[in-house]
Structure formats: structure tokens, C-alpha cells
């Protein structure tokens, strides 16, 4: 899997994404998400101290977290880098969907990823830890790309394909198609421009649109 690093020497060191563990989350998983954002999207990522378990988002009848309130909470806190990616070990859902691997505010500020289903094998049982972390990296990148304004893409194998199952997620490569790469590069540059123009006190901007 060839990473698409945009390792330009002048890439600024200011973090653009903050990876936020929500409750008890493996430190390795957090580090993998941050490292892939850095290596594949060239987005400087920082890791925050764990936030409390988002029990406010619990849907008691389903035993899952509703992704909507978590996104709002992640977006609401204006401190820190302009983008924020939450990681949770609990299953995520939406009011109308039985589950989601992750959810994001398109052209907003926040995304959230669940690791709950990522260890499951298609035929039952568990997959290796390496495959689980690869799945996590794919979803983390996919959802962060949504926050940067990318939408689903149908180019074969592109990371922005919609993956409704683990089998379809496993078929995706850890790579964007050329069209999505172009859009990502433009949005990343816009973000960097906004950061460099914003005063230190308002580094959290721009705020969410959705």
C-alpha cells in the first residue's frame, strides 16, 4: 500500500487536526490515527488528553452512541487545531441508521470514528490487530477528508468510496484517487492559509458549518 505523503519541506508544524480519545481508547489506536493523518494526508496531527466517555450521546434502547451529539461536542470547543477527530470504542449509530463506522461534518470541524466493529471478521471471529488498525486508519482518513469537504467518490479503490460493510472497507486502498487528491491538496492549503492569517488566540477557527 503506497502512502501518498506530501512531504514538502515547508509544511508548517502547526497542528491542523487534534485526535481526541473519547473515554478509554487504546493509545496505539490513537497514535495510528494521528500518524496516518500526518503520513498520508500531510496534516499535522496532535493528540489530546482523553475526554470523558460521551455518555450524553448514549441511546439507551440501542446501547449505542448517537454520532450527532458527539460531533456537536467536538466542534463546540473552539480551542486547539481547526479540525478534531474523536475516537471511541463504543458502537456508533444515527437516529435512522443501525450503525456507522464513523461520521463527520462535511466542511465542518469534527469527525468521530468507532472501533467497536473493526475487529470483527466477515465470517465471524476476530481479525488480526494489524488489520484492525488498518481499518481504523482508513475510516479516520475517510472521515477527516469529509471534514475537509470531500464527498463520496466512485473511482475504483479510492478511499472516499462509501464502505457499508467491513468487506467493502477491506477492499479499499489507503489511497485517494487523483481527483480527490487534488481537492484535498487545495482544501489543506486553504486551511493552512487560514491558520497562518488567524491570530494565535483564534487558532480553532474556522468553526463548523454543519
Amino acid at each position: 500500500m503506497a502512502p501518498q505523503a506530501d512531504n514538502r519541506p515547508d509544511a508548517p508544524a502547526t497542528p491542523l487536526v487534534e485526535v481526541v480519545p473519547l473515554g478509554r481508547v487504546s493509545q496505539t489506536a490513537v497514535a495510528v490515527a494521528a500518524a496516518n493523518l500526518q503520513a498520508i494526508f500531510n496534516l499535522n496531527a496532535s493528540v489530546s488528553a482523553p475526554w470523558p466517555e460521551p455518555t450524553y450521546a448514549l441511546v439507551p434502547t440501542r446501547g449505542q452512541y448517537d454520532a450527532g451529539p458527539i460531533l456537536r461536542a467536538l466542534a463546540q470547543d473552539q480551542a486547539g487545531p481547526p479540525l478534531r477527530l474523536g475516537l471511541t470504542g463504543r458502537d456508533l449509530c444515527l437516529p435512522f441508521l443501525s450503525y456507522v463506522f464513523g461520521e463527520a461534518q462535511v466542511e465542518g470541524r469534527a469527525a468521530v470514528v468507532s472501533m467497536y466493529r473493526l475487529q470483527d471478521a466477515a465470517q465471524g471471529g476476530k481479525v488480526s490487530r494489524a488489520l484492525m488498525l488498518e481499518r481504523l486508519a482508513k475510516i479516520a482518513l475517510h472521515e477527516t477528508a469529509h471534514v475537509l469537504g470531500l464527498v463520496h467518490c466512485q473511482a475504483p479503490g479510492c478511499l472516499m468510496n462509501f464502505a457499508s460493510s467491513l468487506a467493502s472497507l477491506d477492499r479499499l486502498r489507503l489511497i485517494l484517487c487523483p481527483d480527490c487528491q487534488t481537492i484535498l491538496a487545495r482544501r489543506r492549503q486553504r486551511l493552512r492559509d487560514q491558520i497562518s492569517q488567524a491570530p494565535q488566540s483564534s487558532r480553532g477557527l474556522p468553526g463548523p458549518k454543519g
Partner: protein
Amino acid sequence: MSAALQVLVVDDELAMRESIAAWLRQDGHQVTLAESGDRALQMLEQGVFDLALVDIKMPGMDGLELLRRMKAQYPDTLVIIITAYGSIESSVEAMKAGASDYLLKPFDPEQLMLLLHKAGGQRALLRENLALRQRLADGECPGFGDIVGRSPAMLAVFGRIEEVAQAEAPVLITGETGTGKELVARAVHSRSPRAYGPFVAINCGAQAESLLESELFGHERGAFTGAVKARRGRLEMADGGTLFLDEVGEISAKMQVALLRVLEDKRFQRVGGSQDLTSDFRLICATHRDLSQLINQGRFRQDFYYRINVLSIHIPPLRQRTEDIIPLSEHFLEKFARETGRPRARLDGAAGQALCSYPWPGNVRELRNVIERAVILAPGDKIERRQLTFLSPQAAEDAAPLTLAEMELNHIHRVLQAQDWNIRQAAAVLGIDRSTLSRKMKKAGLRAP
């Protein structure tokens, strides 16, 4: 992204509406929200929707009643019923009333994605059907249509059409007025993988800037005085097909910037709108102007020029391919005979010679008009030199003397052409009643092309 759809979400629960909208936006769809059946009907009045996701249980008008009204008034919009309180009775009732599907909340992401693909496919079929009907109405031929030529220059053009048709990059067609740039654009479209998508043409030179903006980008309701209803622009209409910008050299600098942004970002907004829209079209531009000269004069943006001129086709003027004049004339004689139901006329030797020696400043369009006039003027099935009336004064002097009736008919024809076949205006120029002009036109078999 699957084909971007215009989706209307109707649900009385705010959290449900917003979460569905957020999820659909990730897939690139344009989403409008309505909290009740009445509000949904208002939205449908203002815009065009490919798909509606409708909750059954809502205060006031329920989802099933809304479904029935939508199927009566907006049959092209697919409706998917969603409910948290499913029953066999309500699902049967919904399907009988015309729902495309019935989903029980919460449903699997895959189920919804499949339905979105189905809706996208149905919309594509609908548009393809409209495009095909339009092409049949336009009398478009499946081959090169009215592009006729056996000269090496035109054979090269045909070869170039075949080459560029298979690519996706923008095409710039250059050539003098009347050489058939739109016909070439249509030929590229009809040979491209987008042949079953729409071919949407707009003459940029014939529109004021504000009108052109609204025509291209569409507008939202209330965007300006008179915008009583939201309207899709040509960019949206060309989704899945080809957008043809004729006379692109006449576009203002402001519009060039706006179009450049669309070509780069693949996103745009309607006039007065704030929602980003996407459209998957191939761009073909045409101009009779020398764009590089316009760039030197600062009247055309260089970056826009490079964007639209990735592939190019130049159509040579008719005077540089005289061997095409007789085949073209024969083609038009055949066409007019077919259209009028009269016997096919033939050119005599002197007429053919006159056609070949004329410089044709108006190119193929002028030749077509000359042949059409000659068919009307010729008493029998033979076209003689004296029935050929050229617009160029020198050629007119060379022509054989005409009868008074022929002179009158020629003059009427020219005035009608100059007034764009507006009978009221042409009658005013000629100083006769509209009814008199209509009578003379009917008698001579003159009609708008």
C-alpha cells in the same frame, strides 16, 4: 459520489432531519429539509427534487397523504417512505400509492445506499429519455448530420471529431461564422461515452451578463425581481452530458472567472443560493474570434483559455474547400425536398459554376440559405443561375436579371432573415401589414428555418 441527487427530507423530528441531511451530504447530494407535509409541498413548488424521504407519522398531513399528493403533482420525484412504526398495512398502502420503497428505522447504511443508487439510475433514465426525445424533435441524425464534406480539410475534421469524442477533456472549436461549429459539437457529443446524456447549448454572445449568469448557474426563488420559482441552470441540466458554450469569446471577464472556478472546483451555486451544487458535464466551447488576440488585448483571460482549449478542432471556411460546395448543395436540395414534399431540384451547369466561384463570406449557413431561396424561386425542378441570389453585392451584380416578383421575394426573404423571422418586425420594416406579409410568405412557401 453516486450521481448527486436533489433530495427532500420530510420528517417532523429535527434530529432525524438533520442526521439524514448530514449523512446524505457526505455522499454529495443536495438536501432540503421540511418539517411537515405542507412545508414539503411548498418546497416542491419551488424546486425540482429527484427523491423524497418521507416519514409516515407527522402531525397534520401524514406521510401517506403527502405521498399521494406528490404522485399526483410531481410524479417524477421518487418517494421512499421511512417509519419507526412499521406495519404490513401501511407498507402495502404506501407501495400501492406509488412509493419506491418502504424502510423501517433504523435501517442499514447499505440499504439506503442501494436505494440512492436506484434513484440515481432512475433519474439518469429520465434525463436520457428527455434528451433522446429532444434530439428526435431536433431532427438530429445519428451520423455527422448536416456536416458534409469530402475535402481533405473536412476529412481531417471528421477524424479529429472521432479522436476528441473519446476523451473527457474540454474542446475548443474555432471557425468563421456559419462553418457549423454547433454541428461539430453535437457530433463530438453523439460519438462520446456521454451520447445518451443531454447536450445543452447556450449562445453566450446573445445574452446580457446577468441573464447569462442566471441561464448558466440557475437561480433560487426570489434571487431577483421576477424569479418567482427556483430554476435549474444549464450547468445542472448538462449533468451526465455535454455543455456547449457557443461564442465563448463574448463572455465577460467576470463570467470567465466564475466558469473557471466551476471547472476547477467542480462546484457552483445558483444565483441567490448558498448551497454548493455539482454537475458532471463535458465542456465544449466555440468561437469565431481569435482568442489569443483577445488575450493580447486583455479582453480574454489566459488561464480560462488554457482551461477550455485542452483539445481543439478548427473548421476551415468554405472558400478554402470548394470541392465541398456541390456535395453540400446537393445535401441541402435533398433536405429541402424532403421537408417541403416537393420534387428534388437539381442544379444546372451555370448554377453549379456560380456556386463554386462565390467566396461564401457566410460559409455553409449562407450556402444553405441561398439553396433554400433558390428552391422557393425555381418554378420547376431545375435551379438556374438566375435563381441564385447572393448576399455579396459583387455576386449580385453578376447575377442574371430577375423578375419583379423574384426581386420582391428576395427582398422579403432578406428582411425576414435580418429580423430573425419575426413577422411583426419584418412587416414594419417592409412597410406592409402583418397579414399581407403572412399572405405573401404563404404564397411563396417562405417559412422560418
